[in-house]
């Protein structure tokens, strides 16, 4: 009798442990769908994915850095630099759209190089190093734009505009770019020796050094790779609104961190991982879209999504704790 009750309790626990977050994900999905049928229409679901494209890209970069055991507060700066370099290259130097996009990526990589120099060269902790980069990068943008005015480029070439506005077989280009990056990140971080080494550094750095992993080289590569990824997000943002808006990247920072940690909590061993990050981003994207469709006012929507964010994170972490306790 007792054992039966126990078993039932345990199986319930197991369900929560395994699917807790997914159940909440589904519950919100059904709730939004019941509230407004428009929510589940194909076009709106595509809107959710399209609206999350930049966040997915930023969150991928963040996943890589968190996997090394650090954190990157300057992802937004890399995004801004990517957008700024590309827009200025086209507008002031009359470059074609493809070289300009490459210039944007190079601009973003500068941010990664600075981070790498601070973290690897000067041995500053990633949090403080990237906070420093954040201050410096913000200031550079203000100086460059004389206070933070946007640089618009109305006559943007179609090629560049297509980065955000074009489509391939009806799928928006930005979604395709995001999916390609997700696949690349998945194979590099989860399915390659190099990815294993990154995780090893993040889990136990001294052991990684003893095992002969070239820690410094990998860390530099991670910071530069993450920054270039964020710069891709910057290209999309710039192509979308045909201008560079200084300091616009900051708004992605908290969401990216949240998505990565929701994803890490979903992982059996609590590691940041690409599929988990993707789930986290889609959850946040669904939340924003669903709350918008409910027709709430701006402030209420913000507060609700903040509260749901805290609860979702708490749930994801609780789920991991229960799993680890067994």
């Amino acid at each position, binding site marked *: 009798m007792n054992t039966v009750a126990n078993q039932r309790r345990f199986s319930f626990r197991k369900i929560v442990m395994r699917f807790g977050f997914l159940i909440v994900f589904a519950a919100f999905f059904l709730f939004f769908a019941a509230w407004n049928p428009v929510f589940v229409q194909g076009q709106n679901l595509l809107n959710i994915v399209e609206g999350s494209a930049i966040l997915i890209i930023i969150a991928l970069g963040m996943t890589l850095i968190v996997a090394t*055991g*650090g*954190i990157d507060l300057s992802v937004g700066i890399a995004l801004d630099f990517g957008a700024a370099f590309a827009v200025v290259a086209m507008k002031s130097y009359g470059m074609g759209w493809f070289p300009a996009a490459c210039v944007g990526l190079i601009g973003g990589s500068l941010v990664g190089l600075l981070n790498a120099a*601070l973290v690897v060269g*000067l*041995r*500053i*902790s*990633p*949090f*403080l*190093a990237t*906070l*420093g*980069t*954040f*201050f*410096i*990068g*913000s*200031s*550079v943008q*203000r*100086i460059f734009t*004389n*206070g933070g005015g946007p640089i618009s480029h109305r006559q943007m070439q179609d090629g560049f505009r297509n980065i955000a506005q074009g489509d391939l077989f009806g799928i928006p280009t930005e979604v395709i770019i995001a999916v390609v990056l997700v696949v690349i990140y998945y194979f590099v971080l989860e399915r390659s020796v190099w990815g294993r080494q990154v995780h090893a550094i993040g889990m136990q750095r001294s052991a990684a050094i003893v095992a002969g992993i070239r820690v410094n080289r990998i860390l530099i590569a991670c910071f530069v790779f993450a920054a270039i990824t964020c710069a891709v997000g910057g290209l999309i943002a710039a192509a979308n609104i045909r201008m560079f808006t200084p300091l616009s990247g900051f708004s992605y920072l*908290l969401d990216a*961190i*949240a998505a990565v*940690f929701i994803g890490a909590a979903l992982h059996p061993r609590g590691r940041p991982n690409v599929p988990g990050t993707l789930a986290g981003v889609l959850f946040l994207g669904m939340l924003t879209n669903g709350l918008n469709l409910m027709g709430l006012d701006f*402030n*209420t929507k*913000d*507060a*609700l*999504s*903040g*509260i749901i*964010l*805290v609860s979702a*994170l*708490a749930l994801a*972490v*609780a789920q991991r*704790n229960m799993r680890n306790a067994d």
Partner: protein
Amino acid sequence: MQASARNQKHRLATIVGLLPLIIFLALLLYVGLNAPNFMTIVNLKLVLAQSLTVVLSVIGLSAVVMAGGDDVVSGGIDMSIPATAVLCAGIVAVMTGAGQPAILAALAALVAAMLVGVVNAVLVTRLRMAPLLATLAMFVAVVGITNVITERKRLNLNVESIAALRGDIAFGIPLGILIVAILSLLAWFFLHRSKWGLNLQAAGGSRDAAEISGIRVDRLVAQSYLVAAFMGFVTGFFTLARANGYSPGAQDNLLLEMVLATFLGAAFSPRRIVTVWGAILGAVLVAAISIGLKTIGVNVFWTDLIKGALIVIVVALSAISQWAQ
């Protein structure tokens, strides 16, 4: 021979360790030489008044860092203090604006602040969430709630007792500075000179060792978040007094300055740990630099760059001196 080499190395480390403070003082001296008005009592008062909100919040943050350990990602950190401050400022501004007595408004704000503290404590000690993540998410949620309460509007202050924090003079010293000085002394006493404070530091220094010697680490960590929330509550009143009302968006700058001051403070301390004095010194120096640069006519856009460079230089120097030792 060997001893003298070690001695020399030690001396080198000490000099490198003092460099952060020397750089700051040199920068201030440079400003002072270029702007004769800078090194005056009036300006000193201005600098102190400017730094009050940051000083109050760094006291809370240093309590949390001392209890949780100083690793920024996995150790103790409370990013939600500035959000708690604007929440309290918003509640007080809205309630007094609606004609409620100031005492009632303050009580409501205190309850709200303590709720934030309790949620932080539960997330960190019960759910074992990484403090950085938990408090960052709380920052977003609390700012969101504040925006609902205040409708993101600028609200003027009509409570004289709060405005007194800015204008009034007591015993020849501005009242606000006096109150913050007393609170700082209390914080120093409780965190650095009481048994509770020493237990707190032991908990942060080495969690396992503290637990083995019978210290209830989780309880201390939880208490540190309540202290932080309370300091956020106090900061709220000074935010109101300084801006003569509630203005939306004050939290972002406070967050950055709070983190900057606390970890700069750690670079000033001999053992490179976060201390109350170090953090307060950091807060005052950052305010002094900001005002000083403004006085000698440096473009405002450059101040962030200089702040960022300062973090990097100071933290790098402290890392190098630790490594040299």
